[in-house]
C-alpha cells in the first residue's frame, strides 16, 4: 500500500505500469485519475490540505478498503497547490485477484476521498474566485458502503 500527498505532478503512465507489476496472483488492476475540468472559464484550481491529517486520513481509507475487499495492493496519490485545467489532481489504483474487488474498492476509495480526506478546492476564473462547496450527493454516496 502506498499513499502519496505532493504538490508536484506525477507520471500517471509510469505509476500505472509499475503498480503491482511483479504480482502474478493479481488478475485485475483498476486505475482511476481525477482531472481538473476547465468548466465556466476556470483558470486554475488551488487545492489546500491539512498536512499530517491528510496522510493519516488517506492511509485509514486505504486500510479500510484493504479490509473490506480482497486486495493485493492499493495506491493513492493526491496533489495539492495550484493546478490548471487538464492537470491530473489525483489517482487511485487497486489490485485484486478478480475484477469485482478491484472495481468496488476503487469506487469506495473515490467516494471516501471526496468527503473524508481534508482537501479544499478554490476555483479561480473569469468570475473571480470561490471555494468549491461539498455536494450533498457526495456525502450521500458514502451510505452505499
Amino acid at each position, binding site marked *: 500500500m502506498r499513499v502519496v500527498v505532493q504538490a508536484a505532478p506525477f507520471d500517471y503512465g509510469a505509476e500505472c505500469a509499475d503498480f503491482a507489476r511483479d504480482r502474478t496472483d493479481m488478475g485485475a488492476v483498476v486505475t482511476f485519475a*481525477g482531472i481538473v475540468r476547465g468548466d465556466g472559464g476556470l483558470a486554475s484550481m488551488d487545492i*489546500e490540505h*491539512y498536512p*499530517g*491529517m491528510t496522510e*493519516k*486520513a488517506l492511509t485509514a481509507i486505504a486500510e479500510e478498503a484493504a479490509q473490506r475487499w480482497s486486495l493485493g495492493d492499493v495506491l493513492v496519490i*493526491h496533489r495539492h497547490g495550484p493546478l490548471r485545467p487538464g492537470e491530473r*489532481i*489525483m489517482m487511485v489504483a487497486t489490485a485484486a485477484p478478480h475484477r469485482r474487488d478491484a472495481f468496488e474498492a476503487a469506487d469506495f476509495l*473515490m467516494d471516501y*476521498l*471526496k*468527503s*473524508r*480526506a*481534508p*482537501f*479544499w*478546492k*478554490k476555483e479561480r476564473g473569469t468570475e473571480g474566485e470561490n*471555494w*468549491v*462547496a*461539498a455536494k450533498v450527493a457526495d*456525502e450521500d454516496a458514502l451510505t452505499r458502503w
Partner: protein
Amino acid sequence: MDVLYFAWVRERIGLPRERIETSAATVSDLVEELRGREDRYAAAFADLSAIRVAVDQELGDFDSPLANAREVAFFPPMTGG
C-alpha cells in the same frame, strides 16, 4: 493548544493557526470562547452546520472532548478527489 483553520474559515478569521490557552472542555465550549473574542470569529462560526472539526487530526464533532487535545482544526466540508 494549537487551533488551525482551513479554506474559508481561515480566510474569515485571517490566520491559518494560533496558539490558545483555554480550559474549554469540549469543541463547542472552545467555539463559544472564540465567538466572544472578535467579530471575525463570530462571522466564521456563524453557521456551525457548515463547519467540520478535527481533534488531534481525527474527525470529531462539536461534542468532542478537549481533555489532553494538542490540536483542534476547523474547516468546511471536505472536497477531495
